[in-house]
């Protein structure tokens, strides 16, 4: 670790001194990758990049950390404008239709082997969107995930509960698992970031979809309101759910910490944290599919690799070589098993199955099985704006201040319609 970071520093410094040299020592073709992870994911990604760089002599991928998804995306877009964008990066699914529409992404169909990557359909571009069948290949799945229910097995067993299957069971279990010391809650039954992604999960479970049949924003109508009311009920009526503090991924971190510290008995967060939770919890962690209302449903999340159109062709070629490398079974498996993200190729899943991995890691089996509940995102240029400007700013207020759910949804639709 120490040696590699020093090497990275030396490499960075010498690059800087050499001006903006694109080709590095030994005539290797360089590609720059902007990524958005800290902690464990960062370590795993950097080790895979190092392996790629060591595995062949033609290409060299240089990774740079850029903050969380939103920061990284923000930096990428401004950098595209400023002409300092990386060769490739990884971005969340919601923004891809917008970026593709703005013409800044490289279509990947004609790159060698693009049609034979063997991707898991639900995690590929095609399976992750609805209404995108005529789109070129803009993206290769990288760290893909779905929400997952994490239960403190000891707490469940002590209360003789099994993971909730329906919303009603979720509410009941959360109340049973909440413990108080006077006015002070010592353990919350349930916790989930008040966040777009989890809102979309509830909305889909209530039978809604973000856009109506005409393609305009409906936020599921009544389903959207029911999704809000579920959280309001847990927080204000039952007082069994803690709304985690902080914005964007700060709230996610808070959720993880509360679970690990035993302050929340059940939390809903990304499959991405499976390894982290298992390794850091002092109790046994039991994963479960999310509870359903009219159906079981989860959105997919995480990111896809995306190559930027403005990069020089030689850099794009180097980036593509790395993407193919990441889709090879050993890397796909290593990335998935070391982090908790879902393996992105069918061969990786089959290999894991054959090796008995899913018997040894039943939580991984749950996450994998839940992929059957996945619902696609609408391929709409507006999707990202809907997320950033219409839904996200309203969610916290609606839930924390217990606003009338139907009115919140109606306001949001009105603003979306006004543009």
């Amino acid at each position, binding site marked *: 670790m120490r040696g590699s970071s020093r090497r990275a520093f030396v490499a960075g410094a010498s690059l800087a001194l050499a001006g903006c040299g694109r080709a590095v020592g030994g005539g290797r073709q360089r590609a720059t990758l902007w990524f958005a992870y800290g902690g464990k994911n960062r370590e795993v990604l950097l080790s895979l990049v190092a392996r790629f760089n060591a595995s062949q002599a033609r290409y060299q991928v240089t990774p740079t950390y850029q903050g969380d998804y939103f920061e990284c995306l923000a930096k990428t877009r401004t950098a595209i404008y400023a002409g300092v964008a990386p060769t490739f990066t990884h971005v969340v699914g919601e923004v891809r239709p917008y970026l593709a529409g703005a013409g800044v992404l490289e279509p990947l169909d004609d790159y060698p082997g693009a049609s034979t990557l063997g991707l898991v359909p639900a995690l590929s571009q095609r399976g992750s969107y609805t209404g995108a069948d005529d789109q070129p290949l803009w993206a290769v799945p990288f760290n893909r995930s779905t929400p997952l229910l994490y239960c403190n097995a000891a707490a469940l067993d002590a209360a003789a509960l099994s993971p909730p299957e329906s919303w009603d069971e979720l509410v009941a279990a959360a109340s049973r698992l909440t413990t108080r010391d006077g006015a002070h809650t010592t353990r919350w039954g349930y916790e989930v970031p008040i966040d777009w992604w989890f809102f979309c999960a509830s909305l889909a479970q209530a039978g809604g979809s973000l856009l109506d049949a005409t393609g305009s924003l409906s936020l599921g109508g009544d389903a959207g309101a029911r999704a809000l009311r579920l959280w309001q009920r847990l927080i204000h009526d039952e007082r069994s759910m803690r709304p985690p*503090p*902080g914005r964007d991924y700060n709230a996610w971190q808070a959720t993880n*910490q509360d679970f690990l*510290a035993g302050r929340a008995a059940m939390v809903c967060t990304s499959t991405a944290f499976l390894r982290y939770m298992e390794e850091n919890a002092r109790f046994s962690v039991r994963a479960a599919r999310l509870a359903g209302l009219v159906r079981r449903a989860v959105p997919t999340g995480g990111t896809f690799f995306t190559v930027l159109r403005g990069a020089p062709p030689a850099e794009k070629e180097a980036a593509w070589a790395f993407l193919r490398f990441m889709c090879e079974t050993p890397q796909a498996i290593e990335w998935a098993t070391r982090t908790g993200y879902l393996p992105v190729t069918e061969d990786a899943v089959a290999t894991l199955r054959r090796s008995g991995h899913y018997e040894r890691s039943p939580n991984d089996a749950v996450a994998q099985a839940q992929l059957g509940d996945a619902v696609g995102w609408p391929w709409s240029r507006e999707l990202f704006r809907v997320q950033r400007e219409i839904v996200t700013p309203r969610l916290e207020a609606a839930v*924390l201040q217990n606003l009338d759910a139907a009115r919140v949804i109606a306001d949001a639709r009105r603003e979306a319609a006004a543009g």
Partner: protein
Amino acid sequence: MLGPSVLVLATFFVAPLALAVRDSLTSWDLLSPPVYVGLANYARLVASGELAALVGRTLQFALVVVSLSMSLGLALALALNRPGRLVAFVRSAVFSAYVVSWVSVALLWMWLLDADQGVFAAGARALGLGRVGFLTDPGVARLTLAVVTVWKITGFSMVVFLVGLQDVPRDLLEAASLDGAGAWARFRHVTWPLLRPTAAFVGTTSLIASFQAFDVVRVMTQGGPVKATTLLVYAIYEQVFLDLRVGRASALTVVFFALLSGLSMLQLWLMRGRGGRA
């Protein structure tokens, strides 16, 4: 002799303002060409209530910062305006916060105020206040950022007041003392009238500074919870870099500049009484 300076100032101060005015009349996401939309961005700012909310929040934040940092700065200047190594050390300690970077101060207070592991949260629990979400409760977060800002800049107002105190003639105070005036009377009738111009300077300077608050928001709360800490400059940043709404951000920029110019005029006007020292 002046040419180079004028050129740089024009490029990085005057031209950008003109560009901001121009961009404010467009809808632009940096990635596709800008589209002229007239005054739509301004109309939206006003009609949606966003402008009023932003200015209201910023003003509220600024008023807390100014009143607290001024009164605390003045009190400290009065208390610490005496010789002694210990007193000098405390003066340095208070002022050091002004020298340290905003990032340091913000991170430090994030840790002190952490709702679970922070010392202050533990203190609040020990006092039976329960769980205080200093940075997470929408009703508290803005006040928290204001108090952290006060911690950061009070050293500045203290130093300026100390300078002002040097202009208060000793013999005048001694004469008042001989006349039997108590400490409060001496302050009220001798010191304060002489300090008033200094106070006007400190007040307007910190008012302008708190209107420009950004780092503390960006590092500590990113504008949340529920927009409680989305102050003007952070809103501009968010609209450009996170939402790619350059037109809207430029309109906000123009409004922000107009507001600041107003405040600066106020400052110049208040300073006028300072006998050409402004």
